[in-house]
């Protein structure tokens, strides 16, 4: 894996700004796709912006919570993504 710098964003606006400001920067949430590709050096970001602790817009959280899932669809872990996709549809 190529070396990179890391920062944690605490709001959506700060995350967007951080990625826009740095060339080669990427967002990281669950990491299950990005890290996988970084290990193979398919993806070689210079900077990662962690969006896990961003205060997320409530609307999407509400839609999944109403269906019995407390999980934010934006940070779903990939093996459970199918569950989230289903809850969002209903």
């Amino acid at each position, binding site marked *: 894996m190529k070396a990179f710098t890391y920062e944690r964003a605490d709001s959506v606006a700060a995350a967007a700004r951080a990625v826009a400001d740095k060339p080669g920067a990427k967002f990281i949430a669950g990491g299950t796709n990005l890290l996988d590709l970084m*290990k193979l050096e398919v993806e070689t970001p210079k900077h990662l912006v962690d969006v896990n602790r961003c205060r997320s817009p409530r609307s999407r959280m509400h839609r999944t919570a109403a269906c019995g899932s407390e999980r934010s669809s934006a940070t779903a872990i990939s093996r459970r993504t199918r569950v989230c996709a289903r809850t969002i549809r209903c």
Partner: protein
Amino acid sequence: MSESERRLLRPTRRQMLETGAALAILGYTKPSFSAESNPPVTPLSSTDPAMPNVPVRLVVNGTEQRLTLDTRTTLLDMLREHLGLTGSKKGCDHGQCGACTVLVDGRRINSCLSLAVMHDGDKITTIEGLADGDRLHPLQAAFVEHDGFQCGYCTPGQICSAAGMLKEHKAGWPSVVTEELGSHPELSDAEIRERMSGNICRCSAYPNIVAAIRDAAGEAL
């Protein structure tokens, strides 16, 4: 010594496998770092000033840990190579096998696909932290009781995953095989199998793993 006596003294293949699997269940954690024949892996550490190491503070199995890590260090490598907690296993290192499953703030994740620096302030529970002193966690006891393993390599991940899965089920999370969303389904074998589908067992001990989880479901929470 007669042939029959010799046979009695020599451990059988089955005994060897049982011993190995039992150690996996208990999350045997005494790495012999002093052994010259088996030197420890050198933990990743950045020497590039443009890519500085990052301080991380987290609680692992109830003990606060403060580390300074290369940003590339995965949670799994931090546990195994920096803290010597080798119960969590590196199977595929690509999130496909589930052998590295640990609990982060009670939720199961593949620790090979998560960066350690992303877990600053989190509480991590590994297989080593599940038991209460000498008293096995109900899932650990059930895996022993039901013979839920052969080689035992996937077992720490299976048990951590089952612990997280039972909490998810209790909280009413649906799975792909749940007929009615929001119905809080019974934990049927089909539900257990689907919810545990991220944890692969090369020995194919699935029937016994399902039996162990079904058995422990009531008391594991």
